[in-house]
């Protein structure tokens, strides 16, 4: 049984077809029950901003703006934050950020070829990628949670919640 007092996060950024970006973070307990949820207002870059930032606008928005602000905004202290987008590993954060996905879903070599990335397995089902060292304690805790709950499921909820946020704006 994992440490029930600890919490961890799910961070995601959605880009809609109309180029609107919205981000959210769920802080969850070890049972996958949310204890905190923060989301950004949907934002759509202006033409001016697109010109100024060029090709880097997506990374700038998702990593340097939305993800960073979301992580700063949370009140809980997660042991780590899970993401499903490798780009978000570049987010500056005082908490470890871990890319997590099923091994059934192929991740291209180009995605993980960055030498800063370390790759590992959680059991036989999940692949993790992270930038800084993951302590054995954190690794074991993540392994323990993955046995206990459907650890990818909150990502679906996060996406649904962000879709909802966009729909009501």
């Amino acid at each position: 049984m994992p440490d029930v007092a600890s919490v961890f996060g799910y961070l995601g950024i959605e880009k809609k077809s109309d180029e609107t970006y919205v981000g959210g973070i769920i802080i969850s307990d070890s049972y996958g029950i949310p204890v905190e949820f923060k989301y950004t207002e949907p934002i759509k870059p202006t033409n001016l901003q697109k010109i100024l930032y060029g090709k880097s606008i997506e990374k700038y928005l998702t990593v340097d703006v939305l993800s960073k602000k979301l992580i700063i905004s949370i009140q809980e202290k997660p042991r780590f934050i899970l993401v499903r987008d490798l780009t978000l590993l570049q987010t500056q954060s005082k908490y470890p950020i871990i890319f997590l996905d099923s091994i059934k879903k192929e991740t291209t070599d180009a995605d993980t070829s960055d030498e800063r990335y370390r790759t590992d397995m959680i059991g036989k089902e999940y692949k993790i990628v992270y930038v800084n060292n993951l302590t054995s304690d954190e690794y074991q805790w993540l392994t323990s949670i993955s046995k206990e709950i459907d650890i990818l499921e909150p990502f679906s909820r996060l996406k649904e919640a962000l879709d909802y946020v966009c729909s009501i704006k």
Partner: protein
Amino acid sequence: MKKETGTISVIETDFWFEAGIGDIYSPIAEAVTKEGFYIQETELKITDLEETSSALCSVKGFDSETAGRFDQIIKTAGLEAEAGVFSFETPGLGVCISDFTPPGTGTAIFDESPEETSFLMDQIISFPLYFVKGILVYTEELMEGVRAKNEPLFATIKINASDRVIAQFPMSRLSVSRESYSTGNIKNALTFILDRMNHKPRLRWIGIFRDVPINRIKQLTFSESTLSFTLNSLDRRSIYVLDVLAVFDEVMEKYHIAPIIRG
């Protein structure tokens, strides 16, 4: 710096000129903004510009207050010889004009200061005139609409918190193998359900689901081997998380759950 038709598009600056301004305003069009200086998308209009041949502060076509501002602005101007850049300060802003060329002279100013300039008097006179024209472009809009922002472009993104938003989306639990549960514990759970029935049931096994917050569930449903539920609150106080056994009573067509102890 990249110059586009009728538009300045540089790292920090992007603002619009009306078409047909002409080369006379090219120094403005090539203005290089200093760090932290940013003008939002604004259409700059050239209005009421009149020629003048007198000193710096003598500007026709404007009221005294506007002309006074020009005078104040120009007093803070200076040349940077090595950089080949003319710089001046507007209230709260710093602007540089590179390769400044007084109108009608074809001479670029690369001198160190107005006092030590070797330009002819005609050139010196024309210089502030031209400069005032340039300032006009800025000043007219600066005072009325153009805002200088000293912050990142996406600095105003608001972060919201809402338990209600996330609580309305169902969490799910996949059924787990009954191997983790003793026969005795499964029987106890079934007894818990049967004791609460006052008819002879016909039960169908649905599954065992781990870590269900039984006293926080608002809605609950089953789909194949998945239990989905929404929470009525994210309040963690007095939350009871238990494994549950779920069965379906085919007589009453109802689902029933009972707590089950692992081991």
